[in-house]
Structure formats: C-alpha cells, structure tokens
C-alpha cells in the first residue's frame, strides 16, 4: 500500500491494473471465435481491445518510470467507515429488496449510508430513513406505481 502514496507509485499501479484487465479481456475474448479480418468472429473485437488496453497499461507504467513529478501528493486518509457503510447500504438494499420488500430495503439503504458520515447521529439517520420510507410509499409505490411490493417474505 505504501507504493500508492507517491504519484509515481500510483501511476505504476494504474498501468499494471490496466494491463491486467487488458490481458484478462484478451484471454477471455480469444475463447470466443476470432475469425478472419474479412469475417470477424465474436471474439475479434474484444481480443483486439484487450491487447490495446494491455499496451496502453504498459505504456502508462513505462512513462511513469521516466516522468518527473512535481509537488507532493495529497494523501487522503482512508475512509473505511464511509466506504463500508455505502457498500453495505447497497448490498442491504439488494438483499432486503429480495427478502423483505421495498420498505425495509429503503430504510436500510438510507439508514446505513447515513451512518457512514461521522456527523450524522444514530437518531438523525433513523429519521432520515423513515422520511425516505414515506417518500417510497407516496412517490414510488402510490404515484409512480413501481413494481416492487412494499413487503414480501422469503423472496418471491
């Protein structure tokens, strides 16, 4: 993780990431039929893109080796609580949407993501979640007639 704290390290990592995605795409793409230039198969375009992305990724890493960086990188402290809450909120929406219905899912996504912000209190997040539930009932369920049952048990 220390490598990510310099601009050069960040560009190395970015280039490597792109090259890795490119290689994976080219590998997977070539498992579909490649065909010829005249009659291209479904694999041709993805494979070509994968190869290009790999080349660009390598180029990013190589130019990072020779680039001269000025100034210090502003390193932001990791925000684990915020990240966990936002990701958790979306996961909760999917899980509760399937096994609980619109209302529990709505409350969960707003309540959990609100807890991700350090300035929100537990009570404040509850109130915000309940307000969203009201919006879900009035706007989405009643006015827009969204096809999403308010409550359901055990995944319908």
């Amino acid at each position, binding site marked *: 993780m220390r490598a990510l704290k310099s601009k050069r390290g*960040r*560009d190395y990592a*970015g280039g490597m990431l*792109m090259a890795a*995605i490119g290689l994976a*795409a080219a590998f*997977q793409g070539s498992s*579909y*039929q490649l065909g010829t*230039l*005249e*009659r*291209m*198969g*479904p*694999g*041709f*375009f*993805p494979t070509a*893109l994968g190869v*290009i*992305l790999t080349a*660009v990724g390598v180029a990013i890493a190589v*130019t990072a080796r020779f680039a*001269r960086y*000025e100034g210090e990188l502003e390193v932001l402290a990791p*925000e684990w609580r*915020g*990240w966990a*809450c*936002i*990701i958790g*909120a*979306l*996961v909760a*929406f*999917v899980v509760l*949407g399937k096994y609980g219905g619109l209302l529990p*899912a*709505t409350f969960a*996504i*707003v*309540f959990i*993501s*609100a807890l*991700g*912000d*350090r*300035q*929100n209190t537990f009570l*404040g*997040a509850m109130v*915000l*979640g309940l307000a*969203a539930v009201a919006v*879900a009932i009035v706007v*989405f369920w009643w006015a*827009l007639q969204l*096809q*999403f049952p308010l409550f359901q048990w055990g995944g319908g």
Partner: protein
Amino acid sequence: MGRGLIVHQALTDLWYGFGVALEPHNLMWSFFGVLVGNLIGVLPGMGALSAISMLLPITYTMHPVPAFLMLAGIFYGSMYGGAIGAILLNLPSHPPHAVTCLDGYPMTRAGRGGAALGVTMIASFFAASFGITVMIFASPLLVNAALKFGPTEICSIMLLGLLAGGTMARGSPLKGIAMTVIGLLIGTVGTDVNSGVIRFSFGFPELTDRVELVALALGMFGAADFLRSVNRMKFIGNETKVRLRDMRPSRAELKQSFFPMVRGTLIGTLFGAMPGTGPTITTFIAYAFERKISKTPERFGHGAIEGVASPEAASHSKTQVDFIPTMSLGIPGDPVMALLLGALMVQGIAPGPQLITEHADLFWGLIASFWVGNVLLLILNVPLIGVWVKVLRVPYRMMFPCALFFIAVGVYSTNNSLFEVNEVLVFGIAGAIFMALEFPVAPVLLGYVLGPLVEENFRRALLLSRGNMGVFLERPISLTFVSLCALLIALQVFFAVRAAWAKRHARRTLAYPGTPARVTLPGD
C-alpha cells in the same frame, strides 16, 4: 439547393417544431424536466449526469418526444442550477462551473451575487439562442454530407471522437485512452448481434442483455463519487440572501459583460463543433481568453463580471452545438451527450442522418423546446431563487444517503430487477478505484455508448473491403478523419516530450523556477 430555400425550409421546420414543443403534454414534461434538473443541479455534488441518469428510467415507458424534451430540460436546468452553487457558495457541483467560482464567488462576497446570477442567466440565454440558430442551419447541411458516409467513414469518425474524448479531457492522455477502451469493453458485454455468442457474461443470465446504461452511469458518476467524498466534503456555509431586486445587473455591469458574452458564445460554438472536447476545457479557455485580452487583467479573480459572463456563455453555446453531431451523426461530444444518445437508442431510435427526416417531430420539437425550456428556466428562476438558496444549504451528510436511495430505486425500475443495483455497486467501486488512481472516468461512458456502433461498422467495413485494412486510408473522407487522429496523437506526444524536456532543462539551470507543464483542470 439555393440558400434562400434552405432558410425557408429551416424556418418552416422550426415553426412545426414549436407546434410540437408547445403541445400541452410536451410542454408539461419540458417544464418538469427543467424544474427537476434545476433542483438536482443546485444540490452539492450532483451534476447534469446524475440528474439525467436518475430520471432516465421514467422515460423508458414514455413516448420518445416528451421523453427527450424532458431529458433536455433536465440537462440545461441542472447546468443553470450548478451555476447558482458556484456563484453563491463557491461550490462547483458540476466541473464546468469551477471557473465560474473564480469570479462569481468574489462577487457574492462583495454583495453582487444576485447580479452575477442575473448576468449568468442573460449570458446563458443569449448563448443558447445563438447555439440553437447554428444548430438549425448547420444540421441539414451536415446531414447532406453524412448521407455519403458508409461504415468506413462512420468507423473512422467515431475513432476520432473516442480519441478526442479520451485525450482532451483532463490529466494524462494515456489514462484517458485506457478508460475509453474500458468503456468499449464494457460495451461488448452481452449477446453479439452477428453470431448470437454471449460474451463476458460471467455466467449471469442478466448479462446476456447489455450492461444497463443507467447502472453504469450512476455507478461511475454517482456511487463512485459518494465513495470519494464521504466525510471529505468540506462545507463553507455562509449567509447569502438573494432577493429578486438584487438579480437585476446594473447598466454598467451589463455593458461590461456584453462583449465577453459574445466572445464566450463564439468560443463555445467553435468547441461544440469539435467532438470530444469537454465543456470544462471550453469554459477554461473562454475565461483565459477573456483575461488575456482584458485591459485590467488584475481584476480577474476578484469579482470581474466578465469572468462570469464569458465562461457561462461558452458552456451554454457549446452544449447546444454539441447536439448537432450527437443527433445527426450519432457521435456524442461529451458524456452527457453520450447518455442522451443512449436514451435515444433505448427508445429504439437510431441516431444518424436519417433521424432528422424519419423523426422530424423529435428533432424539430427538441430544437424548439430548447427555446421554450430556456424561457421556462428564466421564468422559474425569478421566483424560485430564494428556494434554491435554501436547497443549497442541504448538508451533504443528508443529501447523499437520499441520493443513493433514489439511485437504487431508479436503477431497479429500469428492468424491475435487483441485479442492476449490483451493477451500480460494482461500477461504483471500480469508478472510485479509477478516480483514486487519477484516471478520468468520463470517457468510459463515451466508449460504452459508441462501442457497439464502432464494432458493427468496423466489421461491416472490413467485410465490404474483403479484409483490407487499407480501406480506411483509401476513401477520402475516412482518410481525413484518420489523419486528424494521427495529428491528435502526434500533438500529444509532442507536448509530452516538450514538457519532459523543459523540466529536465529547468533542473539543470537551477535558478529557473519551472513552469507547470500542464494546466490540470478540476474534473471534466
């Protein structure tokens, strides 16, 4: 065709367009779009992209004309909303407005924030009108040229658009290209039209269809942004009161801002015609140009009204002119246009030269609705400015959980399926990682929307030429575009080498302070 005839034809079509735009049903949706766009645009951290993608699912079941009028309304409504935040609170919620902050906010602190808003309104209306006029007369001409386009030409002009979109955003051009290719790859997910082979579905039956446009946009630009800004968004709350009376600029201010407004409009029009140049770069150039030719450049940054009028005019005329290549060629100039193009394709309307003739009601109705919508925007903002100022005060900690909820429900409603919400999560995390590594995410959307078109035309072009790649250089129109691509790459390499050389040189001659090689723009 004689010139008189073209003008006459354009005016007749425009008249018809007004008929469409003023139908009560269409007018209502246009109004709704402007209102909601304005509201979302004012919210901190929300720009045109998130506003459009959040409301896109509603349009899936609507008739294309009102749907598109609404989306266009959201677009310029949110652009104007962004200017309010920039001027009154120094908050550039939409990157092109970053430059408006430079002089708009000092004006607010000097008590002239209302006047700055007034000038913005006038400048945007003037610039939009000019852009619309250009659009009316240029589109039919462009269509005549575009009808000569075969798959080869379409393929090379799209290549140019993608390359320009990737390299001319901000930051490293290589990173922009990488993001464009990622977008193209995401565009290949799903069933291949020619062979029926399912690609990159990772075993999920939901992915046999394409990746959902709304999920990609809201993941990359909504969720990813929340992941980046949670607990990091600094809020500068101040007491700003804007009353109706304050919004009238003084005579001197109007006089001062007239020519900057005209120049900004022309710069915006010029850049609108170039595919791939984002609105942010346009506003920065308009601002820099104005400061350069000013007799009193030291006033800039301390509340010079020219610094508000010119970039705002530039961004609005650019936006209007951007619609020309988007609608008539199917080549979007920036991510917002790509999103609108995606919305068209969801409706089953293929963009391209035939759009103007086959969907005359949509095309001319849209053009007329730009004017109608801009008038609505003017009328709306006079009484509501007080409300917007209050909306600006909604703290981020309450805003983003609600926005996340709207994103989830909106994405769910595209297919009534929760799978798309998972897509948001994946693209959100991916987008946050890309942003942390300083990759621009905007080109992803461009690549995703253009990907299938590029692939199809590429395959067809090579089928027709029997696998001869030289065909792209043999046909004159295509050769022009390919040469432009080569020129673009050569220029980028030249600038990179020169910057590297200058830095090395600067280090040797010690005393030289070293100039920044590239002006980094805050987002694009």
